[in-house]
């Protein structure tokens, strides 16, 4: 079969099925369907597109705000949780154990406690004494 014969055969293809189509009935059916579901105008379509864009932008904003809020809340939320954990640990200690712990905490690490006059205020201390006091307080 050459190309010309192929084209002639293609031209006959579907002719019988097309002849069976009731064109007038199809035309009326199409018009009825168009009437039942009117086409969306360009203006409406654009409005719908912009409405969807607004919805999408709102969702993005909400998600972003949520993420930022979550990030800001986390440290504050964790702090009391850490304190609660420490408090829970102290609660498990007996009275004797707590006393021992207090003695350890109150004792300076190097054992050389700075000597200050008993009635001395901060204003009475010299600069080196103030630095030493700060160091002892910082541990």
């Amino acid at each position: 079969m050459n190309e010309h014969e192929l084209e002639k055969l293609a031209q006959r293809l579907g002719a019988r099925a097309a002849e069976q189509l009731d064109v007038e009935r199809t035309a009326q059916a199409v018009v009825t369907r168009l009437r039942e579901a009117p086409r969306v105008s360009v203006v409406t379509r654009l409005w719908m597109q912009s409405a969807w864009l607004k919805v999408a932008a709102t969702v993005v904003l909400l998600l972003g705000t949520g993420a930022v809020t979550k990030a800001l809340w986390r440290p504050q939320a964790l702090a009391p949780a850490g304190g609660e954990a420490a408090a829970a640990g102290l609660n498990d200690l007996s009275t004797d154990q707590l006393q021992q712990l207090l003695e350890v905490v109150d004792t300076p690490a190097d054992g050389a406690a700075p000597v200050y006059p008993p009635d001395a205020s901060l204003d009475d201390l010299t600069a080196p004494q103030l630095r030493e006091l700060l160091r002892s307080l910082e541990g």
Partner: protein
Amino acid sequence: MPHAEPVAAVPTDAALIAAWQGGDEQAAAELVRRHARALARFLASAGAPDGDLDDLVQETFIRAFRGVDRFRGQCRFRTWLLTIGGNVLKDAARRARRAKVVPLHEELRATDGDPHERAVAGEAEGRLLAGLGRLSRMQREVFLLRAQQGLAYEEIAAALGTSPGAARVHYHHAVKRLKEYLA
């Protein structure tokens, strides 16, 4: 915004489209009368089952009229309509595959169906139909638009969003493969 024009004795497609855009339902009906058979032939050749042909023709026109704002006159209305028909057919074939209701040959149509139907259609036509079912969609549509509808490559290219050279290549590939299949 296009306005409705009074429909003349033999209005052009463009005039009917403008009239439809202005709300004239009879302009739409006239476009259906004018192009329905050519569309039906194209769809049937591209693999549409006879029983679904009326529905597919209707669906194609509905899509075309609803999306007529996108038609810029890049090709003839009929050519544009046929390409929409190709999309409608593809969607229908996809739905059929998903539902597994219609035993489709290759992508589209069962060619080993009703023997009487095939006898009426003719053995050669039946084989060509089967051969078309083996082509890619682009090859099949280019072949039908060229061989059956008699369109120029420029027109086919504009409708299918390709170049005339590419359309020519698709056509020759289709012819080659069909010849091999029918030999």
